[in-house]
């Protein structure tokens, strides 16, 4: 990775973490478009098929701090998985020069 790209990743992660710190306080608690539509037509909530370690982006027993931590963990996991997968999928050879 070039210095420029490292800088880009660091700035990107900082922006993500700032969002993670703000969103437990600023994000609207109202249901989203799909949940509200489900309410409108009288469909209740359903249980997830698999249990998840941080249901609803929260950590049990911790309020906002837990939400921030859960989001930060999610951001880092997503960053690493996407980086590794993109490295595995990327083009290996330089593009063929067009004739």
């Amino acid at each position: 990775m070039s210095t420029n790209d490292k800088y880009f990743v660091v700035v990107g992660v900082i922006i993500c973490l700032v969002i993670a710190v703000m969103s437990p306080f600023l994000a609207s608690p109202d249901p989203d478009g799909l949940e509200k539509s489900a309410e409108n037509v009288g469909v209740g909530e359903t249980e997830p098929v698999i249990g998840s370690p941080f249901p609803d982006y929260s950590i049990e027993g911790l309020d906002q701090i837990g939400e921030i931590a859960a989001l930060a963990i999610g951001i880092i996991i997503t960053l690493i998985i996407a980086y590794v997968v993109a490295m595995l999928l990327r083009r290996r050879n330089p593009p063929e020069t067009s004739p």
Partner: protein
Amino acid sequence: MHIPDGFIPLWQCAIYYVILIVALYFSLKWARKNLDEKAVPLMAVLAAGIFAIMSMNMPIPFGTSGHMVGGALVAIVFCAPEAAVIVFTLVLLVQALFFGDGGITALGANVLNMGIVGGFVGLYTFKGLRKPIGKYPAIFIAAWLAIFLAAELAAVEMWLAGTFPLVAGLASMGIYHFFIGIIEGVLTVVVILALEKLRPDLLAWNKNKNKDLGEQKAEESEVTAK
């Protein structure tokens, strides 16, 4: 717009998984041919950013909220809907497995709506409107339309699943995502403006016209480095 488990019967979920596998096949082929090593950090940061921004629900009218999704953003930045398919498969998988957001059984449907439809509608609307109305208005409309049509498709899926009645579902999803689309459009424009300003080399639309110049420069610098 994350469809949870239990809203779609399993046999229909299987159909959406088949669509996902086909889309991933083409996306992997695209990546092998077009995904530069230089674009890897961009893809990783966009995925993390989409994960983060999805937590920031903003209020819209009718006691409802909505967040940016970003399908059009990824597709426009890479000039490839395939990139959106890859990013959304990963982000939605992380959300379903670790955070219980969007069902794991509904993963195929969720990637179809947000990644495949979001990416295709976003990119091709942008391409079609770019010349007549200008780059940034085209991005706004492309992002708005991407999320609006993704939501309406979700309503149709809910109808096929027997969960929502067709008209009420289309109307609800349409009205809410009309407003959520405005958030989507504004933020998509902001992110692309920022990239254009700070790292124009990362935007695919700058690559073709810079290619000859850029490669020449790269060769020259390699030569001087030696």
